[in-house]
């Protein structure tokens, strides 16, 4: 990964697209329940927007958007959202991942909606994890260091055990 300054054309074309890419990622996430899409795809697209920034503005800038410690925490957090929603259903008296239990209403319409929201929450969890994992993969592999590409700093090595 080179990190000499990219051309201004690239930078000015790429930057404005980033919010749109991110919005699209959320759209894909929201569309996931009844069409192609969902957390996986949304997560990858979201990560791609940050990757684009890193490619055009340089590695440090990209990494600066979502710091290492933050993405490290996001990975388990996303999984936690997933299983937490499942466990919430248990608290509601239903089965694990039985979203209907998230409401006390007996109205089938409402229950169906609950199902919808439950799925959505879970997909959001997936998205968080996927985004942060993708970013970690990208940033760790492209860490710009002259010489031996395998060498890492001591502090990074220590942090690397949290994955």
């Amino acid at each position, binding site marked *: 990964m080179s990190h000499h300054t990219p051309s201004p054309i690239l930078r000015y074309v790429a930057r404005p697209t980033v919010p749109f890419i991110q919005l699209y990622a959320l759209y894909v996430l929201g569309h996931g329940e009844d069409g192609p899409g969902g957390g996986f795809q949304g997560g990858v697209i979201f990560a791609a927007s940050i990757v684009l920034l890193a490619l055009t503005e340089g590695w440090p800038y990209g990494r600066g958007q979502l710091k290492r410690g933050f993405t*490290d*925490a996001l*990975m*388990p*957090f996303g*999984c*936690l959202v997933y*299983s*937490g929603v*499942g*466990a919430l*259903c*248990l608290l509601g008296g*239903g*089965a*694990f*991942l*039985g*979203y*209907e239990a998230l409401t006390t209403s007996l109205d089938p319409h409402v229950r169906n909606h609950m199902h919808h929201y439950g799925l959505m929450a879970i997909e959001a969890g997936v998205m968080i994890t996927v985004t942060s994992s993708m970013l970690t993969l990208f940033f760790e592999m492209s860490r710009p260091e002259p010489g031996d590409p395998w060498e890492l700093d001591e502090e990074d090595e*220590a942090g690397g*055990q*949290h*994955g």
Partner: protein
Amino acid sequence: MHEHLPVLVIVVPLMTALLIPLLSRFGGVRTAWTLVAAALGFSTYASWALLARVGQEGFVRYAMGGWLAPTGIEYVVDPLNAMVLVMVSSVGVLATLWMARGLAVDLAPERRSGYLTVFLLFVTGLMGITITGDVFNLYVFLEISSITSYVLIGMGRRRQALYAGYSYLIVGSIGATFILLGIGYLYQATGTLAMADLAERLPELFHQRNVLTAFAFVTVGLAVKMALFPLHGWQPSAYSQAPAGASIFLAATATKVSAYTLYRFVYTIYGPRFLIDVLPTARDLILVSACAGIVFGPLLALRQSDLKRLLAYSSVGQIGTIVLGVVLLDPAGTAGGILHMWNHAAAKGALFCVAGALAARTGGTRVKDLAGLGRRAPWTGATVTIAGLSMIGVPLTAGFQSKWLLATGALEAGMPLVVPVLLLSSLFTVIYVWRIGMLVWFAPDDVEPKVTSEVPWSMRIPGLVLAGLCLVLGVTSWAGTWAQAAAEALLR
């Protein structure tokens, strides 16, 4: 909450494992350890409660998300996996207790909380394999436990650990991929992934080629994962290089869970008739490799100078003994194999606790450093002696009971040659246990023991508890009754 135990037993440790990276920022390793201990404590409680419930109701079902199988994933608990679940979670708790002080033996401080997270995920994966009633879910959990075990092994103190972890990763992934392929064939043949449905649909399709192929791939894949005799190459380095705490748990339970999976496939999914009527050759092949393992495992162990390697090779023999129960297809034999899972988990867990103590005191695990251990560390000495006797299968220890059941089962199944094989392996085991016993208790008085003092109580108790179990299970019929119930449920 009790009706949700089948899922909570998995979800609680899983969620805790996800919380650890977030929470261990505050309080570090101590927080991480407390969380692991709490989660596994809960799982242990839950699995014992499940065992009790299975005792009353025969089996427990739980549908994920309220979706019934075959649409959804179902968790099914019968006596067999209740037993395995109890084994995995209880040994997990004991290993965690050991780690309270034992982490310092071979892990740098900054790696410890990550290690604990991975360990907890590993235990969760094994429990997931055990409890799930869906073959694909089983594969996913298998991979969770496999990937985490690669990491655990790779975290060993010496650089050989990295290579051991890598080798296991390659071999283990081939095994897992074979299992995945086998499951694919089963799905192709039946269109379902739920074990109960598979069991229902398969008998009509026994002679289809994809059903036969599926069996071959699954069996070979599992044989790799459980280190069945000719496919055990990865295991000695993996066990001996893993950090001490992980190796206690790894050696006591990991391969047994794969063996459990083989029981599941042979008995529940295919049904015992499959091996008898359709593929007697496969039965013979498994029998031969099990017997070869039973003989060669202890024989290879004789040559080892490293305690953990020695124990690892003896595990190759013990896994053969457990797999015997799969192919005997007879109530006594099956019960013997199942019971041997517990018995061997207790004995091998205790022995690895001793290996850990040895590593804590001498920095290595050479067998000859055991010299004079009994003088300075009598509790540890007692642990290694009792567990060793149970490994031999001395009467009144747990090992005897299961071997006896296997021997009677072999006679009733018309495989009398298995009996001398078991005897022979016991005799080989006598030799190395004797060697260890002599070093521990009867080293010449002028030899200065390398182990100069006992390890802390928190590291002694797990070994003592497991060794005590070897005795308790040996003189009570409690475990045997469970194993027989499990065998009956499988053969029904």
